[in-house]
């Protein structure tokens, strides 16, 4: 239960310093790939906190992503705000929505929570698709045609924003390992009824985490939308985003701070190698990986490299 940084954490800090300087050393393509990795590491990392630490399998995290994307677009296009404040504000909007949706939803447990969050995300997608028809005096989503955002000047801002998000989530996971909040969450994840009987407000704690992860996911969504200069309801609320988050967290090692980074890096590189023409093959490979890892290597890549929290074994 020590509070000093571990060897792996010092290494991570060094890696972060190197990444800050990376754009000076390499060209546009590696930077783009790195940005994609950071984005997925942030998303998978946020999902990993809920599922891996607090034991709550959320199958609808994409709802925050879509909210972030459209809120950022609206703030930039309608309120004329520059990108960074828009994304940050969009994150706050997403937190408010997450609080409102989370309060009833987090009363569900286990399979019901999983299905409930999935239903929530799919409802959000349908609502977003129909929004402009339902609320014509405040169009937001452009229906199935979507919304175009202004073109960005360069790619540097995306690199650093995504890097910050990834570092923030990973740092958060590391902080959780030795904080009161972290112990409470892990207690909830291990045995929520026991946690409750020991004085933990399980609903309140889960909601705090849910809202915090919503912020990260939303800002990521907003940043990705601006990066692509285009968003639409079907893609920004797509279950496939949830799927990727889940796979990467699982592959990297559920409940470990560096697992999502490893999973995101591995799968992004696989995807780059297989290329966009072979997207069906990529997804088949993902499916096989999910099955294989779940059955045979549930501790994921982090387990292989022993980057998990120190799991203390019994005396025997």
């Amino acid at each position, binding site marked *: *239960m020590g509070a000093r940084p571990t060897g792996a954490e010092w290494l991570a800090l060094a890696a972060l310093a190197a990444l800050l300087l990376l754009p000076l050393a390499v060209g546009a393509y590696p930077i783009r790939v790195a940005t994609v990795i950071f984005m997925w590491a942030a998303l998978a990392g946020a999902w990993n906190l809920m599922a891996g630490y607090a034991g709550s399998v959320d199958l609808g995290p994409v709802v925050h992503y879509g909210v972030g994307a459209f809120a950022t677009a609206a703030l930039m296009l309608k309120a004329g705000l520059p990108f960074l404040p828009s994304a940050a504000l969009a994150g706050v909007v997403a937190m408010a929505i997450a609080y409102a949706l989370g309060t009833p939803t987090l009363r569900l447990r286990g399979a019901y929570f999983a299905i409930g969050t999935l239903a929530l995300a799919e409802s959000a997608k349908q609502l977003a698709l129909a929004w402009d028809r339902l609320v014509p005096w405040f169009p937001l989503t452009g229906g199935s045609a979507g919304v175009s955002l202004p073109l960005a000047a360069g790619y540097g801002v995306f690199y650093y924003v995504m890097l910050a998000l990834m570092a923030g989530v990973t740092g958060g996971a590391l902080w959780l390992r*030795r*904080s*009161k909040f972290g*112990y*409470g969450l*892990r*207690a909830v994840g*291990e*045995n929520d*009824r*026991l*946690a*409750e*009987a*020991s*004085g*933990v*407000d*399980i609903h309140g704690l889960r909601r705090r985490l849910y809202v915090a992860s919503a912020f990260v996911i939303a800002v990521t969504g907003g940043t990705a939308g601006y990066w692509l200069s285009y968003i639409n309801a079907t893609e920004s609320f797509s279950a496939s985003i949830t799927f990727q988050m889940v796979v990467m967290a699982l592959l990297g090692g559920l409940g470990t701070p560096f697992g999502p980074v490893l999973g995101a890096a591995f799968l992004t590189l696989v995807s780059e190698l297989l290329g966009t023409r072979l997207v069906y093959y990529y997804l088949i490979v993902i499916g096989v990986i999910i099955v294989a890892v779940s059955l045979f290597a549930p501790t994921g890549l982090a387990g292989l490299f022993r980057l998990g929290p120190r*799991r*203390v*074994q*019994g*005396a*025997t």
Partner: protein
Amino acid sequence: MSLLDVRGVTKRFGSLVALNDVEFSVVEHEVLAIIGPNGAGKSTLFNVIAGLEPPTDGDVVFRGRPITGLPPHAVCRLGIAKTFQIPQLFPRLSVAENVLVAALYGHGASLADARRQSQEWLAFVGLAGKASVSAETLSVAERRRADLARVLATGAPVILLDENMAGLNQTEVETAVALLRRVRERGRTLVVTEHIMRAILGLADRVVVLNYGEKIAEGRPADVMRDAAVVKAYLGEAHG
């Protein structure tokens, strides 16, 4: 000065009446035993007091304040903590961390204080050597003691022990009783349910007897054991 009052508590599950108008008080610093044949409603009663189940009717009052219907974590923080019949753990956390959670959230201690308290309570129940191992490696008897340490770490003045000695052999029972005496010396109030009579009689100041969800006797152990209704409840009509 009664610390905890159970007033007219009734609990129905559909058409099954698990508790019927149960009423008694618990005095500060005493050891109260709740006994009765299997199915008498003892565990249900504990669940109602601890907030795990709402009563169908009646109230639970703690320090003069009604706590009926409060969620379990609130009841715990206010001052009533319960052990589990089948000892519960946070399996992949260490034994020390299991107790730490209770000190952090039940007692509300700071992280540094909670760490210290966790070590102290583990030493108190005799598990100091197991502090850094995974909780899931503990034996049943050790789990019972870890559960006790957890409950003590919440700082709750009232501790409900739900058959804490079930499955223990004679030596283990004696150790457990000695431990509970020391808990009582520390100023806690204990409400205990048990099937092991010797433990009860040696430990309890007063006894409440339940049968089919109703209170049929209350008083000092020696008196209650001679009560005709109690004998009948345990041994059947033929001996009444």
